[in-house]
């Protein structure tokens, strides 16, 4: 496969990440179960991670590590900066999930339900 064809295929990743983000937002907007809202937040996060990693893609590049025994002459790398950003983003996503799940546990104890339609003591 030539370089330009590989370069063109990255659009699949972009569209996939847009699709994931849209699914996540849809879940947050349309679903009433707060557990599903948490899942939606997670899906948005995964979509963003996919987007960031895809941005750093370089057709034909290898992982940016100078393991000299395994490299052929003329090897070049993919972009390491988005990978570092993704690492950060993954941890942040895990923290969001942890915080949201602990809130969900407490809400279930307090309200006895997971229905967002009933968790509305503060309104108006």
């Amino acid at each position, binding site marked *: 496969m030539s370089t330009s064809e590989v370069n063109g295929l990255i659009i699949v990743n972009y569209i996939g990440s847009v699709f994931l*983000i849209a699914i996540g*937002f849809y879940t*947050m*907007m*349309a*679903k*009433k179960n*707060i557990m599903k*809202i948490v899942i939606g*937040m997670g899906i*948005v*996060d995964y979509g*963003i991670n996919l*987007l*960031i990693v895809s*941005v750093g893609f370089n057709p034909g590049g290898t992982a940016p590590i100078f393991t000299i025994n395994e490299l052929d002459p003329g090897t070049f790398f993919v972009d390491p*900066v*988005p990978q570092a*950003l993704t690492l*950060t*983003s993954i941890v*942040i996503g895990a*923290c*969001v999930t942890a*915080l*949201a799940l602990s*809130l*969900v546990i*407490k*809400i279930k104890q*307090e*309200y006895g339900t997971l229905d*967002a*339609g009933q*968790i*509305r*003591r*503060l*309104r*108006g």
Partner: protein
Amino acid sequence: MIQHFPILAIMVLFLGAFLTVLCGKNKVLRNIVVFAAMLASSVFIAFLIKPIMIDGEVITYWLGNWSPVADYAIGICLVVDQLNLFFAILVSVAVLLAGVFSFKYMSRDDTLEKYFTLFLMLSGGVMGLVLSGDLFNMFIMVEILTFAAVALTAFRNRSEGALEAAFKYLVIGVIGSSCILIGTTILYSQFHTLNLAQLSVLLHNNLQPATILAFTLLLTGFAVKAFVVPFHPVEADANAAAPSSVSVIISCVLTKAGIYGIIRIVYFLFRSMNLAPLQFILVLIGTLSMFIGVTMALAQKDFKRLLAFHSISQVGYVMTAIGLATALGVTGGLYHAINHTLFKGLLFLCAGAVFYATGTTNLDKLGGLAKRMPQTAALFLIGAFSISGLPPFNGFVSKWLIYQATYEKAVEFGNIGYAFVTIIALVVSVMTLASFIKVSQSVFFGQLPDEFKEVRETPVPMRIPMWIMAALCVGAGLLPQYMMRYLINPAVYAVMNVGNYIGSVMGPGYAEKIAGQTVEAYSSEFALAGYWSPISWLALFAIIICAFFIVSLSGGKLSKKIHSDSPSGLDPKYDTFFSGEANEHSQVGGSDLFWGFKHNLRHYFDFMHNAHSGVISDYALWAFCFLSFMIVYLFIIV
């Protein structure tokens, strides 16, 4: 040595948070650590005032000495220009006073070491956000402050609605953070850098569809953090449920962090404020926030929730003024930002004092506390006068600047819409005064309920920060020329002239080399009409007459319509009352002082009440619709 002070001001707060974890149950040591951290941070910020505000330097600090190589900023930098320092001063004042207040205020809660850990994390996050010069680093700091604010909102997890408010805040906050991160990614893929100054140069006249998408996402993300209109219910919930010292931070500091982000995005990063439609949409958002906030506040029954809606309204003023894109407008906006921090902080601390003394913030249950808590009542009145814009206090100066700026904009552009904004701002100010009359009547005056006969005055450690805030309120109102000279004007100059910032970060001449032209500056000249100029007063008087005329006209129509459908089956208090003994129905609750007004406008109030349904999916829908609307709008205008 001075160049290390910004990073130390941030890291001292974080180190304080870790040491608080290690202190464990030792109360005295913990309080000392927390106080020392906050004080040290404020001192570091205070030392920066002289070189930056007065001498006009811009400090750029490359973390790890990774200064730009081959015209690319490979590391992260902290930049302190006048605008950053303005917000850093605001943050450090609010954090220090709220922290001192919380030593005594929180003493009846348990596991305070976690409270102070999160509190210091929150302060450090905001400080890191306003001093950062890197887009991704701004995102990280936004996440820190969001998580800490969410956890602190749910800190009193047994109190009414705290968990619910925290969950809503988390969901909406995650939407905002996701938007910021997607925008950052798109900008990185186009320009291969994350530095704000470099992006600002590379973005100039380089708008492609993906870039506009990134702009929309970043603007939406920071608008979420500023809690302007489609995202405002979350702030009201969070402020009502959080401890008062945290409400101060959420209402005074986090919204300002969002405003800072918006200023950086629209004035600095994309330099797009010369587009009239963008000015229009920002002013529209601000005006809507102003109006919806204050009308929702009139209908509230809870002290802190009412204050939270006022906070939305005042942030609307700031947003309107920022959106005008004139030097006078930005001056008014920044002045109002710092004034809002002072008086809303004072009001929230008063609410905290009332809660500490009585255990409730329900307006219907409170009353007559002025006899038992005279100092708190006096402080509350100072805050209420300031927020309503009565002349000797600070709210007047900034509101006056904002009226003048909108009016001037209307004259300059010949656009009648901006004159309407002036009128709405005036009406909102009047309604603010009205709702604070209601609060003072139902909390501090009126009848003292029996269960509060034994209430004592707030302890001294809580009163000291309140008096300091009140003194700052009065001072900012009485000495506007000093505030202008040392605080506001340098910041406005920094907003309008981005060349200094870029030159300091990327080296002088960078912008000319890359963009092939000098960085153009907005005009920062403006004629200040002064605050006693008779001609301006006359114009203001004319505007007030107009506003009164319009309101009375529309009011007449409304009352006619209401008479036609006679209220049958409604509350008996709306019945006509002639004479004789008043029965129990004719008593109006403390929170219902303006029931007649609310009754006349009941369609509007009912609609707003139903719209703020409390269901998180609806709020997420509002946020996402706002994002979609902004995408469509910005693609159309650019």
